[in-house]
């Protein structure tokens, strides 16, 4: 998995790329959580995430909850079909902010 972060105004976008499993969740959290902690609105762009398992879903939940604690939000953008299927299997499509 790799990632890049772009800034535009008060929005930071984290572009994740590749497969997200237990082996890379710490890297994903190291990329996402500090941006949330800075108080910015965070967009997670998942168009290039080809696979996500329950560990990746945990990262999305943790990010969502951390944003609520910090008074900001995480918006999940351009979710790939395979990842959307896993999010829906976890019945999180109404909980996470999907756009």
């Amino acid at each position, binding site marked *: 998995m790799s990632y890049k972060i772009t800034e535009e105004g008060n929005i930071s976008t984290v572009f994740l790329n590749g*497969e997200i*499993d*237990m*082996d890379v969740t710490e890297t994903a959290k190291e990329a996402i959580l500090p941006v949330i902690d800075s108080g910015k609105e965070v967009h997670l762009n998942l168009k290039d995430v080809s696979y996500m398992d*329950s560990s990746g879903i*945990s*990262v999305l939940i943790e990010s969502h*909850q951390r944003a609520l604690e910090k008074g900001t939000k995480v918006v999940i953008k351009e979710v790939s079909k395979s990842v959307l299927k896993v999010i829906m299997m*976890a019945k*999180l499509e109404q909980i996470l902010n999907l756009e």
Partner: protein
Amino acid sequence: MNLNESKDFLVHTSSLKEVRVFSREVFEKLNLDEDLKEELVLAIAEAAQNIVKHGYKGVEETSDRMEIKISLKDSNLEIGFFDKGKPVIPENIQHRKLDDIKPGGLGTFFIKQIMDDAVFKKDEQQWVNHLVLSKKI
């Protein structure tokens, strides 16, 4: 088409990608629907992850290996997982309630959603745990 393939992997998070590659290669031979194939790969990856995460909880590093065996006979798909981790007590395995939104606890839920059955067997002397996932395809 009948099939019987197995491979062993180091018990480590870095093996999970190899597990998926192996699973995809096997399912390619079966000409499965792409969605079903990816669901099965997810179930296998989650079960393998459970071995690393729970079977070897507290173990910093190990040279132990886990084996995954995929077999198909008369449309009955069976996926066996063999490991030498902590003995699993099947009654203690529970996924979290879906309305209790928190990180973790979804792997077993995914497995149950995807597969028809998941049973721990006590038929392998050289291994500690033997999980069998099955599904009619």
